[in-house]
């Protein structure tokens, strides 16, 4: 039986680890490669790198970071942020990433999902979504709307409908970034996670809001998530990954120790 995964999320900017609260007030808080090595040693099941100021000029820095990480980290890791074309995706996979994330650019160009899935297999294609809570309406039936461009632009897309479409196009995994919860340390959006986990047949990764091991347990059990993304809770050294896993294990959640 598969273990529930704990995924350490590293937002990176210029090769450094960065952290924002609700997508603003970004600070650079350390070297990304060094942080990756630390979380690997501490028992992360997987790593994610989001390049938060992805631009053409920064592409070489990103590839260099991916390469360095792949030389010293022997667990799967994925890369997202500003991947616009199939060639962008090929670049990070050849540099050593296991999978790629598409977010805004999947919304703008959904066929890119299928192109990546065809080239590398669905297991390489992660659909990452930024989700904002809304009043339920004729357009946003689920009460969750997809936003893009780092949370700045509303799309009018219902999150549940978009995610189902993304899976049909070839996404092999879905990340749910609950924007209202991001960086608050008040817990994941359990309702959103459960809604999506019950509606699709690929793994669901919950993201945004972890402040305690109890929150992580809640989203992996009540929320039905296959994996939990953690960032602030470990970057600011409130808890180590080892402590969180120890808690989950004692609480009866199957994790890799």
């Amino acid at each position, binding site marked *: *039986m598969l*273990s529930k995964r704990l995924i350490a999320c590293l937002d990176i900017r210029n090769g450094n680890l960065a952290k924002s609260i609700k997508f603003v007030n970004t600070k650079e808080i350390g070297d990304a490669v060094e942080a990756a090595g630390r979380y690997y040693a501490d028992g992360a099941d997987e790593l994610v790198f989001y390049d938060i100021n992805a631009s053409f000029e920064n592409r070489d820095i990103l590839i260099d970071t991916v390469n360095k990480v792949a030389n010293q980290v022997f667990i799967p890791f994925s890369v997202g942020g500003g991947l616009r074309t199939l060639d962008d995706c090929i670049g990070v996979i050849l540099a050593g990433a296991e999978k790629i994330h598409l977010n805004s650019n999947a919304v703008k160009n959904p066929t890119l999902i299928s192109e990546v899935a065809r080239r590398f297999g669905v297991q390489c294609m992660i659909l990452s979504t930024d989700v904002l809570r809304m009043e339920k309406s004729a357009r946003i039936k689920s009460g969750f709307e997809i936003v893009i461009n780092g949370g700045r632009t509303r799309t009018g897309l219902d999150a549940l409908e978009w995610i189902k479409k993304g899976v049909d196009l070839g996404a*092999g995994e879905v990340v749910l970034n609950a924007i209202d919860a991001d960086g608050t340390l008040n817990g994941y959006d359990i309702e959103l996670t459960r809604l999506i986990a019950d509606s699709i047949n690929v793994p669901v990764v919950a993201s945004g809001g972890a402040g305690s091991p109890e929150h992580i347990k809640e989203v992996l059990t009540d929320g039905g998530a296959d994996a939990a993304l953690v960032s602030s809770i470990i970057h600011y050294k409130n808890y180590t990954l080892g402590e969180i896993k120890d808690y989950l294990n004692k609480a009866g959640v199957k994790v890799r120790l």
Partner: protein
Amino acid sequence: MITIVDYNAGNLTSVRRALDYLGIQCRVSGEAADIISAERIIFPGVGNAQSAMENLNKTGIAAALKTAVASGTPFLGICLGMQIMMSHSDEGDVKCLDFFDGNVVLLKPSDRRLKIPHMGWDSLKYKKKHKLFDGIDPKSEFYFVHSYYANPTDFKDVIALSEHGIDFAAVIGKGNMFACQFHPEKSGEAGLKILKNFSVWNGEVAL
């Protein structure tokens, strides 16, 4: 020196990086002569069995692999590499290398909540000891990504099982051949230990 077989089937660099990190000498080659003369062979693979077999047959690598295996070269198959060491794969209905008798079949868990591919960390149920697991905690988990699995006819070839709705062969071995469905190069310290053990394994099964 380990020879990593290059047959245009996916991510060879992750295996090479792991060996480099461990300080184990290796070369990546798709030349039949290099494979026949190799001291040890790692046969990785990601992707589709049918196109992999087409490449192996077209390039003459399939014949070189058979020669190497018959001569006793220690041989490690990984993921798709393991699958095409079987006699046949349902993925594309293709005849494979036939190092192990048995078919490769699609995972079809009866519990519909179980997702395909079987992707993530999973534990092993050991059926036999093997030198490549020396020094590895039996509770260690390994990283899997696959939709098909090898189903050997002879249960004696099974070293360890894993479970995803059903029990399936996660590790098989016979003589100088060892093959795992998971990715040792992506399985943290336990996976690296398998690669390290392989780098000094003489291909004998005696413990």
